[in-house]
């Protein structure tokens, strides 16, 4: 069902062309933040206004859209953005990673490897990785121009000096194609290795800060580290309580008021697929039973 009275995918054509030109330059200069004339969108800053503008400029009638928020297809942000494009573009939507041609994400990369036939659009709150060390845009812009990134290494070193290890666990800085240092958006560092040489195009949209940047397919993305403190991702002692997966990013869920907890896959589609295939974790009912109860 398409809403009448709006252009296809909400934005006017002039705006889409402006965003499309910014996207092309972003892909041509991997990791560089291209300024763009971000528009007011019918949702507040912080809810994906950048990602939604990138998606609106890219999406076509034959696309199948998946939207995730922290890995889940059924949270408020994901549901409302999915419905926004159902209404304004009339596109098909899906929760299956493999069935999607366009995936807009807030803070996760799906567990299932992405392909050349897919584009991943990230929602970005703060696109400038150097912003916490240098508040002035005029300065950070010069630092990027001169590859003056010492301050970022000092920031990571201070973690080691104070705490014995790099404690930054999300939005962990990366170097793209050996040149620009880039904020991967607040994905857990667990997801950083998936960005490296990914066959799918990765686009990043920051609505409040009005920046678009990109990682082309098959491009090197290296998480910053030190020789004696190599980059590591999170690990868990047990697998997912529902599907038993030991290779996925797990969320901690409080299940009672007596300190009970369970660890479950953050990627809901991945977890469901595994349970449907018969993989069971220690706290799951058989999949057929839960499906029958719906």
């Amino acid at each position, binding site marked *: 069902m398409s809403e009448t009275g709006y252009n*296809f995918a909400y934005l006017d054509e002039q705006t889409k062309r402006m965003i499309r030109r910014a996207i092309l330059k972003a892909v041509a200069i991997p990791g560089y933040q291209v300024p763009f004339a971000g528009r007011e969108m019918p949702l507040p800053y912080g809810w994906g206004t950048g990602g939604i503008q990138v998606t609106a400029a890219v999406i076509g009638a034959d696309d199948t859209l998946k939207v995730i928020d922290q890995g889940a297809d059924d949270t408020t942000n994901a549901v409302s953005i999915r419905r926004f494009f159902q209404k304004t573009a009339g596109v098909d939507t899906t929760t299956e990673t493999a069935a999607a041609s366009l995936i807009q994400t807030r803070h996760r990369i799906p567990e299932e490897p992405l392909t050349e036939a897919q584009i991943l659009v990230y929602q970005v709150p703060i696109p400038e990785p150097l912003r916490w060390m240098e508040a002035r845009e005029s300065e950070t812009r010069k630092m990027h*121009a001169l590859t003056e990134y010492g301050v970022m290494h000092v920031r990571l070193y201070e973690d080691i000096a104070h705490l014995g290890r790099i404690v930054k666990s999300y939005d962990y800085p990366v170097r793209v194609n050996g040149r620009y240092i880039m904020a991967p958006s607040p994905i857990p560092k667990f997801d950083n290795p998936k960005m490296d040489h990914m066959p799918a195009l990765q686009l990043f949209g920051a609505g409040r800060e009005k920046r678009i940047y990109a990682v082309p397919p098959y491009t090197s993305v290296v998480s910053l580290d030190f020789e004696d403190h190599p980059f590591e991702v999170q690990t868990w002692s047990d697998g997912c309580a529902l599907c038993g997966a030991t290779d996925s990013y797990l969320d901690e869920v409080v299940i009672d008021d007596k300190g009970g907890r369970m660890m479950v896959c953050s990627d809901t589609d991945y977890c469901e697929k595994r349970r449907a295939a018969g993989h069971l974790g220690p706290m799951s009912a058989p999949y057929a039973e839960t499906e029958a109860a719906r």
Partner: protein
Amino acid sequence: MMPFPSPTAALAPHLPSPGFADPVRDAQRCFRKVLAAISYPGRLQDMRGLLSIAPGPLHPAAAALCLALFDLDTPVWLGRSVDTPDVRQFLSFHCGCPVAAQPGEAAFAVLSAEEATALMEAFHVGTPEYPDRAATLLIQTSALAGGPAAEIAGPGIPGSQAIEAAGLTPEFWARRGAINALFPTGLDMILIDAQRIAGLPRTVRIER
């Protein structure tokens, strides 16, 4: 009532060459082709079905790119090979883009491979702070296959990619290489034949 004079062919208004049949959807489809071309450099993207006729010396694929990318914000420089009244009328009617008097003022240029080779240094390559302000060259060639063979590598290319566009001489590659050596500034190019395009962003380097 005055009889309306029947116009002869010579007096008929000269209509601009038609644009997209469905401007919104066709512009999106065309953009996705360009996006794929820049994302996967050197890979041929099929532009059939977007535009079947084009004004004068413009390839239909080139005219489609103009419709999808140009507007009043983008000064366009036209190489002599494509600078005809028909092309100017087409651009002014459909895109409303200003025609740049000098190559250095242009956000986009439409030109032949020979013109690109000769004039490359004249275009804006951006600044170290704002490398995105560089021009994008839309380079028309007679064919994207069967020309001098080259191997390219870089972001978007797993391993290496063969490219055989007509008119891309050793001099073209040498001058382009010298400009793009100062990355992040540089020139992004889209190679075009009648109904296909291939991307050549500034990050791509030639292997041999």
